[in-house]
């Protein structure tokens, strides 16, 4: 699946998007898998309460299942307007 990062999540991980092959069941599983790979992920995801997730461009949460999802995005709370 495509995994996208925005704002300081993007800066900490060091790239705006990447293709990830995973068998993670939920968003939380995916995060754990990424964090186990490299420190920059662990740094970005250190405080999950400061991170929001969207699945296929709809806001979701860390418990949500990834089955059928093609695009996962992680970002800080939005500051539009």
């Amino acid at each position, binding site marked *: 699946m495509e995994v996208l990062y925005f704002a300081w999540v993007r800066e900490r991980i060091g790239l705006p998007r990447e293709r990830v092959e995973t068998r993670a069941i939920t968003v939380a599983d995916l995060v754990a898998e990424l964090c186990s790979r490299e420190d920059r992920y662990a740094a970005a995801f250190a405080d999950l309460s400061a991170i929001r997730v969207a699945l296929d461009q709809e806001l979701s949460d860390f418990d949500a299942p990834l089955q059928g999802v093609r695009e996962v995005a992680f*970002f800080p*709370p939005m500051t539009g307007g």
Partner: protein
Amino acid sequence: MRVSVQVEAFHLGAEAEGFAQANNSAGAIVTFTGIVRDAPQGGLVAMEIEHYPGMTLKALNEIAQTAMERWSLADALVIHRYGRLAPGEQIMMVATAARHRKDAFVAAEYLMDYLKSRAPFWKKEILNDGGAGWVAARDEDEDALTRW
């Protein structure tokens, strides 16, 4: 109803006038315009606005559509810029047209509250001392959603 996500500056005067003319049977028109303010500590050189292209239009359309239905609006307009903006530049605007002023006001406030916290934009302040920082979401903006 029109929603636009754009790099280019918009012309508040032309947008407000066009919106009001197009809705001149509506009775009440409200506009809100957001302008890049200096940083709290001063020294803002620019505001960089990042967004999530695949999601932004969809999110704005959903927010505007909900407002249209909930307050029986005659029309709604949302324009939001991204990219690098200087202090004093207009970031975004919303406009609402309704039969009565209450609906036009409350729908515009709804649009703003949701744009603030549910539209995928992020702002970074670039300062003249070389520093830069992402604008943190404010608790009061998140809290504002609870009233809807």
